[in-house]
């Protein structure tokens, strides 16, 4: 049974549907990927699942653990186990890393914070008291974000381009974290343009122009990367696409 279901979701910006009758299922203990060109609706879908400001008005339904998320505010969704890691994590001037991680941690002990940092390859002795602000590099900040997610022990993890800004050595820590979530029964949803990240997933969804264009095992969706969206020659140009996709 799916832990998270997207049921015929339509979201509009003005008249334009940015999510167009999406229906999808995400299972516990599985890693899923959302792929598609820029503007396909991947981040919009993640923000809608999280219930962020400006992403709460939609048609259809999002069902989590058998209950509708309509009207459920973002912090309540998080307390129920859903969380999101942004492509560009926010910077918090002066806020120590340990306090940031502890803020959402299921177990806010020092040990748990240190374990989370170690899991993403950051030495707690070096990073625990550093500020979670611009003094961290983009990659360091991203790894702190993943550490915060690990400490939170969520049931649904939305990760928007988890490899952006991450160096080649550190990416393995991110991949380890993804697999750790999976092994602990979480539903992982990766938004990616990267083949190595896609390969962390078992199932993938191909979005274009707010519509679900394809889904299946990643071996099938990988062609999207290999063949430059062979299924659609005119991504994000719906007027030209009429007939080709409909």
């Amino acid at each position, binding site marked *: 049974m799916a832990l998270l279901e997207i049921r015929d979701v339509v979201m509009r910006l003005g008249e334009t549907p940015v999510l167009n009758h999406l229906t999808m299922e995400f299972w516990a203990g599985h890693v899923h990927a959302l792929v598609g060109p820029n503007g396909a609706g991947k981040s919009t879908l993640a923000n809608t699942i999280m219930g*962020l400001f400006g992403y709460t008005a939609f048609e259809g339904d999002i069902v989590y653990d058998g209950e509708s998320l309509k009207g459920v505010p*973002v*912090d309540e969704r*998080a*307390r129920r186990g859903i969380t999101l890691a*942004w492509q560009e994590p*926010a910077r918090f001037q002066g*806020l120590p890393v340990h306090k940031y991680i502890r*803020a*959402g941690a299921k177990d806010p002990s020092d040990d748990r914070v240190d374990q989370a940092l170690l899991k993403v390859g950051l030495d707690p002795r070096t990073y625990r008291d550093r500020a979670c602000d611009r003094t961290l590099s983009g990659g360091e900040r991203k790894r702190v974000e993943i550490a915060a997610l690990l400490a939170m022990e969520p049931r649904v993890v939305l990760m928007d381009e988890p490899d952006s800004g991450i160096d080649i050595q550190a990416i393995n820590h991110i991949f380890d974290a993804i697999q750790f979530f999976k092994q602990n029964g979480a539903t992982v949803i990766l938004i990616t343009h990267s083949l190595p990240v896609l390969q962390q997933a078992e199932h993938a969804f191909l979005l274009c122009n707010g519509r679900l264009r394809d889904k299946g095992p990643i071996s099938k969706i990988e062609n999207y990367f290999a063949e430059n969206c062979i299924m659609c020659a005119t991504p994000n140009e719906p007027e030209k696409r009429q007939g080709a996709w409909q």
Partner: protein
Amino acid sequence: MAMTLVDQHDIDAIWQSIGMAGHKHEDDVVKITVSGNRVIGAHLLPGVEVDADEKPDGVAVNFRILDEAFIAKPIQLCFGVMPETGMQHIELNLNIGENSRASVVAHCTFPNAVDVVHRMDAAINVGRGACYSYFERHVHGPAGGVTVVPKAKIHLGADARFKTEFELIKGRVGVMDIDYEAECEAGSVIELIARIIGAGDDRVKINETAHLRGERSRAFLQSYLALKHDAFAEVYNTVTAHADGAKGHVDCKEIVQGRAVARAVPMVDVRHPGAHVTHEAAIGSVDSKQLQTLLARGLDEEAATDLIIEGMLG
């Protein structure tokens, strides 16, 4: 020094009010405790001289760090008014000798205040090549009830460094009117930093000015405030630059919630083509992305906002 003999209990009570109960006496730490208009405790070291005169409404203190003196551990000062009402007027004459090094942590505690006035009129001279920092932490009660009026005239000799940090992030402000003005000679560096949380009907006014008179002198004025309820704050930070290579920056950030009102007026006055002064001011609610990030970790809006402010002011 005129010092009133008091029970050790009085000294302990005032340190306890700032969360330093059981604060052990350390032979190598300069420590001075002023309660109301009485100097109730003083421990000095070579290189530090203090003369204090009790006055009807406060105390006049001549504080000297001698030339070339190096005071390894921060000097601990505690100014407090423990009763609900009272007036404490500190006249401070501070002379930091040439090429000396010292830092001060000043605790100002008014935990039971209903109607307390704390005034400081300071003349601070930081001698040539000296390095001096002054960190002033205020501990107020939950009801405000304090009027804090610190005023300082500061002079920095050539190549001197002076950093002052003013912090009031626990308890209510009451009324605060900070007025610092500094004259900076060649190669000197001054940092004036204030971090304040205002709530209820607190009123905060910060007026800080640095005049960069000498070549290569530098100034950094930073005011970070977080206001909620009906609090009001106005910040006037000014840097004037008069010499080649003088550099300054004015930075004001204010977070406002509820019906709070904030005003920031950074002023830059450059009178030499070789000088460079910048400013920035940002007033508004907490950053939406920061807020949503913490909401997505399960914090409610109030807890998330408090954490963002704690980071900014901490």
